[in-house]
């Protein structure tokens, strides 16, 4: 009896696999078709220089030490190193003024490493 159960399970398994061939493909042909991202997706960070008060919390909470904030009186300089960033979103959650937002941009591959260093100045902008 056990043997018959096993054979039956084998047949059911094959039928199940065969049924998959009638289902919709899940593959996306990448550059032409893109994935629909969730709202909470954490991509490349974006600074809003107007809101920044230069408190430096983002520098302290960053586990990868990708952010550096310099405050001289009213002038705020912030350096951001995307090659170190792990997209954890800590800076976004801890920022008291919501000056940092993680955008949904994820195509960050580049052949020039200088593209990954971003420098912000409050008075000058990006």
């Amino acid at each position, binding site marked *: 009896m056990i043997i018959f159960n096993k054979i039956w399970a*084998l047949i059911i*398994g*094959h039928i199940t*696999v*065969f049924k*998959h*061939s009638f*289902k*919709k*493909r*899940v*593959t996306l*042909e990448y550059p032409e078709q893109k994935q629909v991202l969730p709202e909470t997706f954490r991509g490349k960070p974006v600074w809003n220089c107007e809101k920044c008060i230069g408190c430096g919390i983002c520098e302290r909470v960053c586990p990868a030490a990708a952010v550096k904030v310099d405050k001289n009186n009213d002038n705020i300089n912030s350096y951001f190193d995307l090659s170190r960033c792990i997209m954890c979103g800590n800076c976004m959650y801890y920022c008291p003024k919501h000056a940092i937002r993680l955008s949904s941009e994820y195509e960050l591959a580049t052949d020039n490493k200088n593209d990954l260093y971003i420098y912000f100045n409050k008075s000058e902008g990006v």
Partner: protein
Amino acid sequence: MNYLYFWYIQILSKYNIPKIFGDITFPILPFCIVAAAIIVAVLFLVLAERKILGLFTQRKGPNRVGIWGIMQTVADAIKLLCKQNVDPRGADKILYNVAPILVFVPAMILWGIIPYSSEFVFMNFSVSALLYISIAALPVIGIILAGYSSNNKFSVIGAIRSGAQIICYELPMMFVLLSIVLISSSMNLKDIIFSQLGSFSILNWHIFPCFLGFIIMFISILAELNRCPFDLPEAESELVAGYNTEYSGMRFALFFLAEYATMFVMCAFLAILFFGGFLPVTGKYISEMIFSDNQFLQLFIYIEQVIWLMIKTILLVFIVMLVRATLPRLGSKELMKFSWYVLLPLSMLNFILIAIIKFIVDGGAI
């Protein structure tokens, strides 16, 4: 081959080419046809396997090179041809180079033994079924040599597994073949096919008296081809790539070519033994219905026979791929146990059953 021979000589004489040229070139033609057919079939099979596995896992498979990725295997082949052949340090150079050839040549001979239509048989021996089975077991020598000469642990383990596997599964296969030979009272593959010709068309096929034998044969063939769930010799997750770990370039391509060529020809063998080979499913040749009173009717029938055999073979290949998509790999010990404790007794039982059926059907006359 007589019909084709006269046809060939006739065509040559039309262009004032002497008959002696035809006599010399005619035996070479089958070789050329087989070589061309193997390459086309393998290119088709590799792509088909990737596409079908994609189908079963809800992916698309190759879809970039050419329309729907049909040129993918051609691109792969060009890549393999251009690659460097690396000899590992400490390898036995001669055996290392001979092994891929020893694996590929039997596959090519097998293609010659298969009767594609009633006239289109390259090597027609009276014991071609026996010859087929014995040559089908030959590639394992090449595999063992490849494993031994590579100077690599994984290769040796893969080769030993392959040797153990072939010993286990050759025996049930022989018993099933014996029962088929018993039904058709011939060892010639063409005669085996013609013994499935009868007034009941499909019901005359050997699969109906010998269904158990078909299952045993199918499993044994999977084991002999080193395919899932019996792909222990090249188990990727345990042994890197088994016996062909060290091989690269054209030598690896030969292993690859041999694997798929044997897969196709083994499925053709199954179709011949159990599904009536080149006999039509409809009971009567379709070209006979369409082109009655045509001087080329005979030729059309031969072509149709080839198409019938190919359809049956491709369906069997599809099932082999379905099995690969479904089942996980067996353990080495389970594999042996399954063969010696389950398949061998069953195949003997099948043989005895077939003998009894034959005795009753023939009215007790021996």
